[in-house]
């Protein structure tokens, strides 16, 4: 089945079985390996991407449903060669150890901060509750997101003033 979709702002095309997973489309013909597979059953969240603005598990979305859709992956969170504040904070504040859960965490955290620029720690934990991490104990991930939220708010304030 021929599917046309926008990926990270660029119009792309794939030709795959309609039930092939969006995850396999991304990691295969679309050449974007930032999105990871940890469980293949929608439990770990390491395959999270934005689909039409909403965070979803790419392992649970058939490519056949993606025709005409817009997908944003971790590669699309910042311009090439740059780190978005969320990404920089994750690196700086110990939010990433082995890094396998990090792309999915970033998508979940980005989704949160777009709607809620000043989250509480519990709100952060709720937003990333579908992203399993085995390395960090989550504490530093939560701190990283809070730091990024603060930084983004300061930038906004600075820009406004």
């Amino acid at each position: 089945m021929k599917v046309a979709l926008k990926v990270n702002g660029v119009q792309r095309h794939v030709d795959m079985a309609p039930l092939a997973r969006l995850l396999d489309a991304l990691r295969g013909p679309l050449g974007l390996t930032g999105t990871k597979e940890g469980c293949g059953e929608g439990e770990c969240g390491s395959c999270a991407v934005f689909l039409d603005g909403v965070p979803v598990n790419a392992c649970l979305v058939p490519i056949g449903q993606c025709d005409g859709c817009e997908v944003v992956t971790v590669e699309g969170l910042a311009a090439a060669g740059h780190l978005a504040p969320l990404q920089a904070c994750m690196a700086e504040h110990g939010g990433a150890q082995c890094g396998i859960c990090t792309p999915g965490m970033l998508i979940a955290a980005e989704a949160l901060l777009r709607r809620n620029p000043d989250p509480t720690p519990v709100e952060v934990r709720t937003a990333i509750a579908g992203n399993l991490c085995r390395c960090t104990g989550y504490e530093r991930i939560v701190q990283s997101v809070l730091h990024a939220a603060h930084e983004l708010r300061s930038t906004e304030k600075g820009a406004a003033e």
Partner: protein
Amino acid sequence: MLAAERVNHRYEPVALVACADKAKLARAVAAVTLDIEPLPAVFDAEESLLGRTVIWGESNVQNRYLITKGAADADDGEAAFEAALRACDVVVRGEYSTHHQEQLYIETNGMVAWWDDDGVHATGSLQCPYYVHKAFKRCFHLEAEQIHITQAVTGGGFGGKEEYPSLIAMHAALLAKKSGRPVRMIYDRVEDFEATTKRHPSRCIVETGCDADGTLRALKMRVLMDAGAYVTLSPVVLSRGVLHAGGCYRWRDVRIEGVSVATNTPPNGAFRGFGAPQTTWAIERHLDAVARRLGIDAGELKRKNLLAEGDSTATSQVLHGSLGGAECVEKAFAASDYVAKRRRGPIVEGRKARGIGCSVFMHGGGFTGSGERMLKGKVAVDLLLGGRLEVRSASTDIGQGTETIFAQIAADAAGVSISAVSVAVPSTTRVPDSGPTVASRTVMVVGSIVERAAREIAERVEAVRRAGESFAAAGDRLLAQEGPQTALVQYEPPAWVNWDDKRYKGDAYPVYAWMVDVAEVEVDLDTFETRVLEFWSAADVGKAIHPLMCKGQLEGGSLQAIGWALSEEVVWKDGAIVNPRMTNYIIPTALDAPPFHTILVEAPYAHGPGGGAKGISELPMDGGASAVAAAVEHAIGVAIDHLPLTPERLFAAWARSNSEAAQ
């Protein structure tokens, strides 16, 4: 590598199939039928120990260890020890058990292998490239230079990628050889869960004798571990288990017996802690019981008996220096207000009960006894143009920060900026064998030779440097004049380390890291769900080269211990795993995890790099479970000695104790 006449566990590999077309491969696998005659099987360690059905060796027993001290060292040691134990004021006996745990790294095991004119190549998710290298030498009868093993970026290991990757790599290489094509073998989650190694289940029987005032005297322990169908790492896991069985306490008389037996389950293997979490669970829960019997607080009992300068351990190792345990107790108790909260008793509000509990523990860094001497771990540091250094070691970064910390150590030792240091990808073609990335040895042992090698390079440059000349210019001149500059350094354990492998006595580890956990929990009196509300810990890490990463290790390990305690459970039926998926193997989410308050304590280790760093990555795994169990006991008055503390088990234990109370 492949089962020949006997299949000894449900997930033992029997045949290998490869194909370029994934769909065709799936059809081929589905078309394979196995003609297998069932044999009597044993799935339980206690049953195996009885030896009625022999499935391994003569008696199913793979290894035994015996640690003795004091009265137990006498000629009639066993009788003398019994007498000493019975002569104590208060004797307490208990049984404690722990269950399988799956590492559940978020990236599964996988390897890619291919052959070319240079020999055989394998790249994959692994912890120990030279383990795979060694396996290939034996399996394919090749010379060292013909084998090229490289670590790919690895999404978590925790011990689960210490030995198993060798098997996958050999499988892929065999298929690659036969097919003449590169072969990729990546386990899906179900395969990984079913076939790869897990934490050894254990059953400990503990009997202690102490004075009426709580001074500990005699410790008797029997440690039984379930090895699974093959030996693999079980002797070493059992060894570390028994070596940590005395906890961090002073004992006058000790008799610790360890035994590992085979069962028809997938071989168990390395998982953070490596035997110590199992015996630490037993000794900590046991001392909680002793404290209850004596009517004193468990934290006070543990603090009172803590090993200090000049004291000797259960293996008669006399401890000198780098003993931060007491400071950890003080700081963890202060931060959590443990003493006052314990004294106040459980707080019941509506249908919720809150309690607090602690654990105190230590973990030996590096390989036991003469292990490091036998390993002869090596590291190379090269001087490159422009004053740059490259660190070449076999230590892998699996999330614990090896790459960053080695760069820090080298930069500091050489007096250069960290941006001038690169750490080579661990490939056996390029890096020397530094020993495996296990046993909390990467920073403490391998880091110390990174430090020496970097210092050596810097000294060479300094020797030729002219006044006012930069390091880079002097280095370039040195290279131009004398050719490539490499410092190759081999690890030398401290000379005073004296370990008797036959009697299992002496300096088991050159140094121990210390930790105290305090957990505050809330138990729902209707559903028996346990929430860890807060978690404090203080850990003596020797020297925190990267404080943030240190805390990250302590917190990550603590959450793995909490998961092991409260929700993780491998469910078996006739030697098959019923829940080999993330859906039904329950690790904590961000909502289940408590906020962690982590305090770093520094009691530097004289031989540790960066000013005295000790190995700490396994340490946090040892104590989290017993801190949580102690807190649950404080909250609802039910003492659980067998993991996991699922709501179902807590409910059953509470119902039992309620009906006993009624009677």
